[in-house]
């Protein structure tokens, strides 16, 4: 055992950076705290890259990429990492698709072999495509069982008029029924190239040796064309939008979404602090909620809504994205509080901050919370690998390393400025789920 995986200020050790001849970006961090290694392979493709008729393609392709390759039969693929006691998974979101495996370090070569196979030699068997269609529709229907999830989809679709962030990552059900095997295979061939990928290796490895192994497994894959993309810029919102879902249910839910800055925007760090002051610090990891509840007892909205008995829960969501996305506040109505009252109280609290900012002591607490969460969230090589690859893919090099210092430098004036800019009435979409 030697060395800690992150410093007390939350800054991760600098990765070994390399680019293979075919364009594959490689990042390696040595961490010798356990005999384990985590391999993440990231692709710069997500639901924002999908056009009409193809919504859900990125996610479906992710599923298909577990259905066998030329070198790994379909019925062995999902057991491949289990042979080493490993954890494996994949996920797709608006900007990125990624695959992970974490296992004992003797599995490194096989993990790299599997990812190289996935990048270039997936089968896209027609029968497997049809079988997976119903699995994905089942996943979609499982999500629809949750009214909060349903509301999230509707609010997001209302907040964006033009940008493809408006459609859900799982896709619209009509597209899921209509897409063909060839649509999916074409999408795979277009985006799964070394030039559109980042390989991250974190764990008990020698960086030089790990790089040699990566070159051996990935070096023979042809570079492929850099995918060209047409970008749609969401026009500035010109007025508040509201929507209501009325459905059978037991509980009322409220969501307020504001257009918010992208990860590379100078306003990103002040917005993180603003979110922490309003609803508690989540850290920087997309999956922070899995690490336990948010510290939020002194947060503005917790005090005014939950402590006062109007809401059973309140939460905020603001994460790093490639293009400007959303800062979303969610609240669950407490029994006896009409949704309209919860909505008015929430908007009034947000309008107060929009007009007057946050006092310095609350900003200082929010900064400190964020700094603690950043240290605590880097608690495993899997999480470190995620953070390195995620920020490289959605924000580019250097952003993650700089964030702790950028957060430390945020002032109450910065927070007041972003609150005035982004929490404006004309910039928001308000939605609620009214149970009947």
């Amino acid at each position, binding site marked *: 055992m030697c060395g*800690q*995986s*992150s*410093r*007390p200020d939350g800054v991760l050790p600098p990765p070994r950076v390399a680019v293979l001849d075919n364009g594959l970006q490689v990042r390696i961090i040595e961490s010798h705290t*356990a*005999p*384990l290694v985590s391999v993440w392979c990231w692709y710069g493709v997500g639901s924002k890259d999908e056009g009409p008729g193809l919504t859900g393609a990125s996610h479906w392709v992710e599923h298909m990429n*577990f259905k066998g390759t030329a070198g790994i039969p379909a*019925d062995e693929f*999902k*057991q491949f990492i*289990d*042979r*080493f*006691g*490993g*954890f494996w998974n994949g996920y797709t979101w608006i900007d990125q698709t990624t695959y992970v495996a*974490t*296992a*004992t370090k003797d599995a490194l070569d096989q993990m790299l072999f599997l990812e190289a196979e996935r990048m270039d030699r997936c089968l896209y068997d027609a029968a497997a495509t049809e*079988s997976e269609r*119903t*699995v994905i529709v*089942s*996943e*979609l*229907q*499982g999500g629809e*069982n949750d009214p909060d999830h349903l509301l999230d989809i509707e609010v997001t679709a209302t907040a964006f008029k033009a940008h493809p962030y408006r459609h859900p990552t799982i896709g619209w059900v009509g597209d899921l029924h209509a897409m063909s095997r060839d649509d999916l295979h074409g999408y795979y061939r277009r985006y799964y190239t070394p030039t559109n990928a980042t390989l991250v290796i974190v764990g008990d490895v020698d960086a030089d040796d790990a790089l040699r192994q990566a070159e051996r497994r990935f070096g023979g894959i042809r570079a492929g064309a850099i995918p060209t993309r047409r970008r749609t810029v969401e026009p500035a919102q010109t007025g508040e939008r509201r929507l209501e879902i009325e459905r059978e*249910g*037991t*509980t009322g839910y409220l969501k307020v979404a504001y257009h918010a800055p992208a990860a590379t925007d100078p306003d990103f760090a002040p917005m993180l602090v603003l979110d922490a002051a309003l609803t*508690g610090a989540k850290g920087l990891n997309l999956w922070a909620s899995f690490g*336990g*509840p*948010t*510290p*939020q*007892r*002194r*947060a503005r909205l917790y005090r005014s809504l*939950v402590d006062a*008995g109007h809401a*059973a*829960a309140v939460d905020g969501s603001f994460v790093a994205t490639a293009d400007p996305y959303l800062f979303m506040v969610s609240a*669950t*109505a*407490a*029994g006896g509080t009409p949704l309209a009252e919860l909505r008015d109280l929430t908007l009034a609290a947000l309008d107060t901050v929009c007009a007057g900012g946050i006092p310095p002591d609350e900003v200082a*607490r929010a900064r*400190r*919370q*964020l*700094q*603690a969460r950043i*240290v*605590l969230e880097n*608690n495993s090589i*899997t999480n470190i690998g995620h953070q390195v690859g995620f920020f490289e893919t959605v924000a580019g090099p250097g952003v993650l390393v700089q964030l702790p210092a950028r957060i430390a430098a945020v002032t109450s004036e910065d927070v007041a400025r972003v609150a005035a800019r982004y929490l404006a009435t004309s910039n928001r979409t308000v939605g609620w789920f009214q149970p009947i």
Partner: protein
Amino acid sequence: MTPTLGLAPVREQLANGVTLIVTQTPTQPAVTISAAMSAGSLCDPIGAEGTAHLLSRLLDRAAGTRAADEVADVLDFHGVSPSITVSRHTTTVSCDCLAGDVEPVLGLVGDMLRAPACLDADVEIRRGQVMTGLREDEDSPSTRALDAVMPLLYGAHHPYGRATKGSPATVEPIERSELLDFHAARFAPDRLTLVLVGDITVSAAVAAATEACGGWRGQAAPLVSPPLLPPAPPVHRRLIIPMPAKSQADIVYGFTTIVRSDPAFYAYWVMNNVLGQYGIGGRLGQSIRERQGMAYYAGSMFEAGHIAGPLLVRAGVNAENVDRALESIDIEVAGLARDGATGQEVMRAKRYLCGAMPRSLETNAAIARFLQTAQQFDLGLDHDSRLPGLVDAVTVEAVAEAARRTLIPEQAAVVIAGPYEGS
């Protein structure tokens, strides 16, 4: 198969009976605090189900000499948010904090467990949150199916059949005095196991624990022991919970199994991996998801406890596929019981379970959970070192015997919740 892991925890007992277990790890400048009190929903008075759960929701409000705002200040200043959970046997407070913050955070955790004030205003706020949570559960097919299978398996009045969170009817009338009585009777230093894992020495941990909990005096009422054998008859039981507005149906298909101290535990662990975990959901996932494309999730979970715990098969499927999915579960369950697992399946499952151990003990929080379990079931401080050998010793015959004893479709308790009204 796997090298000895060697957590090498140290166990100390404070003068007032608090059990302290410490493992120093250098991974991060952080420490996990896990405080488990042997007082869970088993201790709920009859008719007041949900008492332990409601009390748990009040632990992080006013406590000792601290007002609720002061508790909130300490937590938020240090970026700490305790996770407070209630099982049938324990109430557990756990959190991660920076290494330099252990003393103030542990001091607060000690106050939360020793002297929650349960002020009237806080009781009403927290009761409201619990009631909202119960209403949300009523709207979730997966939660309703999972909750409903336990009384089917154990009987509605068995301690394992009663709802841990209670119901609106039982939570609504709980008085503040009942919460305080429950705390006085069930929370005591000799029922507390405190586990500290992270960047902290044993001597510093003992000093911090003594400062936080050493002054606590008191004795708890005798432990509640549930009947060892579930009273529910081992016959096929089936419950449909129609939820026509939902998009998907959730199936839970369960059995009772064995106690944790049963020597067959490791054979059951391997058997469950074969049935519903290996790869993506074991044999069940291979059939229901991979071959038939019927479900996003299909698999099984196994939990042995102080009494015979449950093995639950779970799947989420379109209502049109419920009957076909149930038939597939019947086939896989009966097939494993009849023929056992193959030598290759057992070998693969054992290799997976042993190989997963270093990974499953990578974080401080995971180590803390492992040590709490080892303490709860008296598995020994060296359990992490012995575990690979115990799994490795499982035979094909032992796995077949575990399947034969338990996986009997005619004795399953089955719940379907969702847009399904029966075939």
